[in-house]
């Protein structure tokens, strides 16, 4: 039930946004993400954006995985 998926903000007003990912568009509530801007990725859960996706942090996670595999593979 706590499933959430990242989608890209195409357009927004104070309480509503059009978001899109891989050709699927939908309108979501933006009450919980006042700071998200057009072009940002937001995490969508049950019809609302609940948080912003931090691309820099995403890259750090991938780098960390690479590091761990590097260690394990040797």
């Amino acid at each position: 039930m706590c499933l959430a998926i990242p989608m890209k903000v195409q357009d927004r007003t104070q309480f509503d946004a059009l978001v899109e990912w891989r050709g699927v568009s939908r309108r979501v509530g933006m009450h919980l993400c006042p700071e998200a801007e057009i072009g940002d990725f937001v995490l969508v859960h049950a019809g609302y954006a609940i948080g912003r996706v931090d691309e820099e942090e995403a890259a750090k996670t991938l780098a960390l995985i690479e590091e761990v595999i590097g260690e394990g593979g040797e």
Partner: protein
Amino acid sequence: MGREALHDARTVRALVGSVAEEFELIGRELRIMEVCGTHTHSIARAGLRQLLPPGLRLISGPGCPVCVTPISYMDRAVALARRPDVIVATFGDLQRVPSSTSSLEVESAQGARIEIVYSARDAVELARRHPTLQVVFLGVGFETTIPTVAASLEEAEREGVENYKVLVGAKLIEPPLQVLGKDPELRIDGFLLPGHVSVIVGSGFYSFLEEHLRLPGVIVGFDPVDILMGILELTRQIAAGDPRVSNLYGRVVSRDGNRPARDLVHRFFEVVDVSWRGLGTIPNSGLAFRSGYAHRDASRIEVDLDPPVEPAGCRCGEILRGSIEPPECPLFDKGCTPMHAIGACMVSSEGTCAAWYRHERHRLAGREGVEA
């Protein structure tokens, strides 16, 4: 390295190898609880239990909101649905959960107005379209979902949608972790913390694990590689005797979480003692409407209720506490299946029994292999 690494089989094998090495060093059985139902599902689907050393036990926790919702809540939802002036709006997961004598699905077949919605927003829209009826949204969930319910209430208040009500079944994650983390029978060594609850509460929220329970916790995402990274981090902390909270899901979880979301929840709800299936009443573990919003509270709509009756033989409660695994229940796969579910843990797609039925049952029967 691209995102596809999160699914990559080689990455999985390398991580499993690293976990096995740490596990050897520790040299005793380890018991790691995954708190979130979505993790339970992911672990079962990827077959991670079979890849890890046998002494490294993954125990499913109470993080499936549908499963921990007590039967008395479903009794009230069914009673509300029977009122001719009420439309019940609910997430699909709840419709087949048994009440003492019925379910929303059965009531719907008998003419009750029950609408499956994807979002609390849709329930507000339903109320707008049916101004002469009361629309009751079943507000079940943890910290992830409750802000969306609060947002729907904000919309109803702002736009004067008077006939929109919520039957609150909100649960908080810290109190059960405190209870389970201290349970001498469970002997938990660490927690895989729920990724999307953490988006709201923030990684700083979990300092109680270190301070009160002296247990490690790792916030992780939902891909098999995310989960294995979390398990590896836990084994390293256990090996080092240095329990901390690590955040491996920084792409969506910050230290402070989502403050506007928590503020909106705080506006409508206050913390109260609530009852959990399997765990009983836990102090300060749920939410109820503040008195200023009594006009939104569907539990104030009058209905006749009989005392709740749990399904005979169902051991859902023990499964939710992590004290038994689904095959130990006499009903598992013998009368209780996803198509004919007796207990809540089998009804919800995120329930431990449903995850085991769909993904672990065949492996238990001797067939091996990891799903692609």
